[in-house]
């Protein structure tokens, strides 16, 4: 057992990375980053804590405070399931340390247990961080109680059971089809599931006034709140735990503990050999169809710029991290907006009508709104501000090709434009439809709005590209670092925000010359785009070779 715990602690320590950097960021740098994260989270934590405090205080006046604990249990277990479906495959099957662990003189049960402890430490760390503000809020309101201890115990047991169950389910699926050994495919599927789950939660809490703790409390007591119902429908087995928190019973509790321990021990002993065999058989990607003459010829000659743009798009879609951060973000915004409408009360349509009336009176607003949304959509996808960074250690290929560097960079620019269009194209169509239905502005305003979107989109993508040419993050081991830990986003986002602020200021403060000023801003953007194009054509090779 000592061997297993030592190994698990070593695994946890060596795989814990906050900043992904091949040069291995120092302990102080990691700690500073961690503290910064905590500081940034304080406002959210404080608001959750105060909300829980207010709700619990109110419920305590009618002796119903344990409803909060029951809800916390449901939310807690949901978080555990949510984190398990990500952590278990990552640490059990796709981890880089597996190859080093398998040759060690350990039994399969020891190996499985060491990995489970490693996952459990991460999971509980993540979980405690999320649940802490609620627990603190509850304790401050009604004081420490045995019910709180029970809650902690049930959550702990549930975390272990969920983790083991997830690993078993995954192994069973993988045994049935080798396709499921494809890390990229599994990551995509799991992420889609969790995304669906997140959207469901978003949908469930929609319409609830979070600023009114009493209203939330009443909703919970009445049991009509869709969030609570949603959790229960996801996790029907929780009823026993919830019942024990609200009304404790020793017999039920002992039965629960015994059954849980039997499940944990039995599962580890029974499934460890199968799990370790699956871990040993991992290739990271499934084999596809065999090469044939037909598939060899199924390609057409493309000009370099088209071939390189196609490559960029393929890599963006096929790399799960890029797909989620660069592509899906463009698809998800309309979905979230859609959800708001579906669950809406009809007030949104009134708002749209009011807005369209407002725009009809002052059509320049439409141009500014379109420009702002175009700036937002062109920035938020992060394609061009990370286009060089994503090359990482493969950047040398760019310097090697007998193709002008500007051509290669334009391929990256076009990939950014294509991704931006995922959101901007529907937006353009929406503007036309809204104009036909409500605004009925002159064609010139619609053309101006569409042109504005085009100009801003071109500028923002060129600007992002320029930022990454001069400041690429090339040293990373995990693709996530190239996108998520890349400060270039901040630079481009600030640029985008400044542009929006300038247009809005002009619109509302320079009434007499607003139209000319907005026109001037667009002219300046065009000139800036030409200048960036010029820099890319003349300086990019020299700049990139120096990185």
């Amino acid at each position, binding site marked *: 057992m000592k061997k297993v715990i030592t190994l698990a602690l070593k695994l946890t320590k060596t795989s814990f990375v906050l900043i992904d950097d091949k040069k291995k960021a120092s302990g102080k740098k990691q700690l500073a980053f961690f503290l910064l994260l905590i500081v940034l989270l304080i406002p959210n934590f404080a608001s959750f804590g105060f909300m829980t405090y207010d709700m619990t205080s109110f419920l305590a006046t009618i002796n119903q405070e344990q409803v909060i604990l029951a809800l916390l249990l449901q939310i807690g277990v949901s978080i555990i399931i949510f984190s398990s479906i990500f952590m278990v495959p990552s640490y059990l099957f796709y981890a880089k340390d597996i190859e080093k662990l398998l040759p060690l003189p350990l039994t399969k049960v020891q190996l499985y247990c060491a990995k489970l402890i490693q996952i459990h430490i991460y999971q509980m760390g993540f979980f405690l961080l999320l649940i802490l503000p609620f627990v603190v809020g509850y304790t401050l309101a009604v004081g420490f109680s045995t019910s709180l201890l029970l809650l902690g115990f049930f959550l702990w047991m549930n975390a272990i059971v969920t983790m083991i169950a997830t690993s078993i389910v995954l192994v069973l699926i993988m045994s049935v089809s080798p396709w499921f050994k494809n890390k*990229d495919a599994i990551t995509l599927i799991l992420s889609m599931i969790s995304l669906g789950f997140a959207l469901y939660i978003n949908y469930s809490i929609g319409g609830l006034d979070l600023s009114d703790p009493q209203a939330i409390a009443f909703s919970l007591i009445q049991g009509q709140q869709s969030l609570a119902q949603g959790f229960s429908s996801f996790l029907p087995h929780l009823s026993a735990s919830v019942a024990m928190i609200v009304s404790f019973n020793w017999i039920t509790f002992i039965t629960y503990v015994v059954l849980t321990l039997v499940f944990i021990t039995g599962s580890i002993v029974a499934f460890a050999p199968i799990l370790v065999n699956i871990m040993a058989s991992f*290739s*990271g*990607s*499934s*084999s*596809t*169809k*065999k*090469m044939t003459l037909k*598939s*060899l*010829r199924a*390609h*057409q*000659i*493309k*000009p*370099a710029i*088209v*071939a*390189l743009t196609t*490559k960029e798009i*393929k*890599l963006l879609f*096929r*790399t799960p991290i890029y797909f989620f951060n660069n592509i899906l973000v463009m698809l998800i915004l309309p979905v979230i907006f859609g959800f708001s409408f579906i669950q809406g009360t009809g007030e949104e349509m009134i708002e749209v009508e009011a807005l369209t009336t407002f725009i009809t009176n002052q059509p320049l607003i439409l141009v500014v709104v379109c420009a702002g949304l175009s700036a937002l959509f062109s920035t938020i996808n992060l394609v061009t501000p990370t286009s060089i960074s994503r090359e990482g*250690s*493969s950047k*040398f*290929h760019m*310097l*090697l*090709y*007998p*193709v*002008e560097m500007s051509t290669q960079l334009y391929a990256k620019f076009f990939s950014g434009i294509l991704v931006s269009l995922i959101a901007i194209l529907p937006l353009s169509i929406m503007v036309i439809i809204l104009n036909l239905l409500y605004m009925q502005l002159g064609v010139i305003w619609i053309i101006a709005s569409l042109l504005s979107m085009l100009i801003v989109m071109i500028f923002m993508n060129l600007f992002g590209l320029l930022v990454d040419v001069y400041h690429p993050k090339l040293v990373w081991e995990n693709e996530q670092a190239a996108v998520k830990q890349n400060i270039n986003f901040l630079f481009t986002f600030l640029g985008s925000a400044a542009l929006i602020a300038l247009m809005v200021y002009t619109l509302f403060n320079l009434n007499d010359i607003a139209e000319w000023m907005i026109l001037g801003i667009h002219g300046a953007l065009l000139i800036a785009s030409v200048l960036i194009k010029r820099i890319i054509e003349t300086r990019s*090779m*020299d700049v990139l*070779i*120096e990185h």
Partner: protein
Amino acid sequence: MIQLSNLTKSYTKAKKAVDTLSLTISDGSITAFIGPNGAGKTTTLKMMTGILKPDHGDVLINSYSMAAQPIEAKKQFGFVSDNPDSFLRLKGIEYLHLMGDIYEVSMSDRLERIENYTKRLGIYDTLNDKILSYSHGMRQKIMICGALIHQPNILILDEPLTGLDPQSAFELKEIMREFSRSGKTILFSTHVLDVAERLCDKICIIHQGKIMYDGTLEALKEQYPNTSLEEIFLKVTL
């Protein structure tokens, strides 16, 4: 022909990674670039291929200057890096077609070459798989095929035999010999002195950024009679 003249590169002020290095590699030869770790082999190869910019000096590839005519110079050679972990989410066949498009290879030529080289190196059947699923050796092979797709006049390889199984190493050496026989030039860096001894017409020993020896193996052995290449290498680089 590859001509390096007074090539110099420093990463820090204290030390020159490559120090006024001049070298000529003639057509139709196989030249091994050998030296201890940190000798400047990879830095030289990178400057030769346009990946690094020299502080001083120039590289001529078939008379095209890497500084003045980089596109023409780059069309002359194929390069295989020591790091084959690139384009991992492209399928093998997609990577080769990408190389074909970049080097403007006609479809008939590229299909013939893809079939020839991938079959010889034993990766033809895996071309529909993503490079991510390949082993290190297979990734190395797909990169070699990519470098050969435009039938360059010059082939530059950085540690090409690392990770290759014996059969593939043999095939690669055969491909290199064929290249050389058809009048093309091959330059490769290696730590395996045995390979250098058996395969090369010429040996270039680099140490602390300077060329310590540049000539045929026979001439080198004449300087150090009754001594193995390994012993000569140790003497020259000590």
